[in-house]
């Protein structure tokens, strides 16, 4: 009936489709479902960087989109522009830029950031207008819904939703636990 393991399990494993930092064979994979207009995700952005530097090559990190469009009216376009940047090999640069400039996410701003990053801004603008990456962002979102994403940001450590604090110390500690007890998630 009410088993705890019924909810909060990542249903879409990290794979070719994902934007990833860190080695593919790292013992721990951290997945963040985030919204580029969410203030908590902006707070989490430097924290994830900190955790990455602490854990080093033992960590693989993937970011997936979970735009809460009812409360963040720029979040969907921001996510699509991050994907447009990815098509030009610059997902992480755009991801960082959008969090750093979260206070200015109008369409014009998004195109300006593409130009700043040395991308083909006309192509980005065209793809945004054509909604080229709408389905891709939706796919991320639905994979999150089906995995029990419960707000933004939501983190998964080796496929299990992290329900504790995502402050750097607790996130690092949870990751270290997953490294030392790799079977924990599957035997839970």
């Amino acid at each position, binding site marked *: 009936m009410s088993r705890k393991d019924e909810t909060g399990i990542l249903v879409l494993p990290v794979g070719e489709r994902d934007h990833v930092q860190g080695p593919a064979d790292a013992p721990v994979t951290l997945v963040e479902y985030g919204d580029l207009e969410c203030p908590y995700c902006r707070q989490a952005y430097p924290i994830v960087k900190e955790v990455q530097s602490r854990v080093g090559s033992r960590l693989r990190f993937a970011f997936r989109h979970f735009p809460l469009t009812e*409360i963040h009216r720029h979040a969907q376009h921001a996510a699509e522009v991050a994907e447009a940047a990815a098509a030009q090999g610059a997902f992480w640069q755009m991801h960082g830029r959008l969090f750093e400039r979260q206070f200015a996410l109008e369409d014009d701003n998004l195109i300006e950031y593409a130009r700043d990053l040395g991308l083909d801004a006309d192509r980005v603008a065209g793809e945004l207008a054509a909604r080229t990456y709408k389905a891709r962002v939706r796919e991320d979102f639905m994979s999150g*819904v089906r995995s029990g994403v419960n707000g*933004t940001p939501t983190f998964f450590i080796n496929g299990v939703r992290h329900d504790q604090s995502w402050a750097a110390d607790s996130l690092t500690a949870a990751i270290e636990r997953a490294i030392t007890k790799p079977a924990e998630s599957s035997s839970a």
Partner: protein
Amino acid sequence: MIDTETRMTSGPLSPGTRAPDFTLHSGPDRTVSLRDLRGRPVILAFYPADWSPVCGDQMALYNEILPEFKRYGAEVLGVSVDGAWCHKAFADHRQLHFLLLADFEPKGAVARRYGVYRDGEGITERALFVIDGGGVIRWSYVSPIDVNPGADGILRALDELEPGGAAR
């Protein structure tokens, strides 16, 4: 008065149980009865209180996922012990597109009948029930009070309803 023992042992109504009918205010001058929704699945989402932080808010999440619930013809009803005016302010502020019910007077009476009232604290558990079109509970889940359970369990439960259960 603080009777954690009762709370621990009663537990939420189980799958297979007929969902107790109720009539609650969905607004200052409107009510909803469960029996009026017969014929389509109902998601009853008990939650402790209005006004939790927005990006992690359970009701805001369901608002976002509403189109998915609609694909199953399902009706989502949020339920807490907050009053109708509080719900109205909360729903307006968050632009919620589904109903919030006030289990306000007698306080928590519906939550008690579903086995998800927290005696002594005066709030409901964070509990989910998926009720089929015939009015039978098909899935129930109680989340730790501070953990938003998300929607994965709800969608799996809706997947498992046989087509007849959701017949119009």
